[in-house]
């Protein structure tokens, strides 16, 4: 898994079957010091809660589609978690670019997740 910063959203009304309702975000992959590394990619948001500005971790390749409700879809990057902090010994780097996490309840989860249909 890799760190990435969400930098935008993608709206696509025509998508491959199975991708309906899956949010697509533009993310900038980061190196371990959280500096941009490589080109931005479009990632499916498996937690359905990430938004621009947030630090996330994502999986690539085959594992990406396993993160989604329908696990056999054409997806090559998926966001699987929103980072609260990256903590080395004695120092913490908060995930959000500026200020505390806003309006959202951190423990609230989308109802759509949870049970898989298989």
């Amino acid at each position, binding site marked *: 898994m890799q760190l990435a910063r969400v930098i935008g959203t993608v709206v696509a009304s025509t998508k491959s079957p199975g991708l309906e309702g899956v949010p697509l975000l533009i993310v900038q992959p980061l190196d371990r010091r959280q500096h941009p590394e490589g080109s931005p990619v479009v990632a499916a948001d498996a937690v359905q809660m990430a938004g621009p500005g947030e630090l996330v971790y994502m*999986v690539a390749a085959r594992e990406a589609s*396993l993160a989604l409700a329908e696990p056999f879809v054409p997806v090559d990057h998926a966001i699987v*978690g929103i980072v609260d902090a990256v903590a080395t010994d004695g120092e913490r780097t908060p995930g959000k670019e500026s200020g505390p996490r806003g309006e959202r309840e951190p423990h609230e989860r989308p109802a759509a997740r949870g049970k898989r249909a298989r």
Partner: protein
Amino acid sequence: MKLARVVATVTSTINVPVFDGRKLLLCDLLDPEGADAGGYLIAVDTVGAGPGETVLLMDEGNSARQILDARDAPVRTLVVGIVDDVELAPAAGDLPPPAAAAAESPPRRARSPRRRAVR
């Protein structure tokens, strides 16, 4: 599998359910000498490793899912061991010429000149 050094823990409350209750470690990849190889991976801890430790990473999805007993989990990288020591065979240039080696008749388990503790 890969050698790596744990540099940080990654915490998150909003994540895919398979990561609930699991520790994520940010690991820098190392070369066999223990130097930074460039690149890093975030791995799921299965052995109780912590920052500063040299670890063994397994970066293969099917094995990772088998170990976690999670058939459809979006997981590929696991920390599967804590490395005590890495011993490298002497490089060709470090070996003494055969005659000198026979004269000295070193003990069989001689300490390699390139032996080096990783931690």
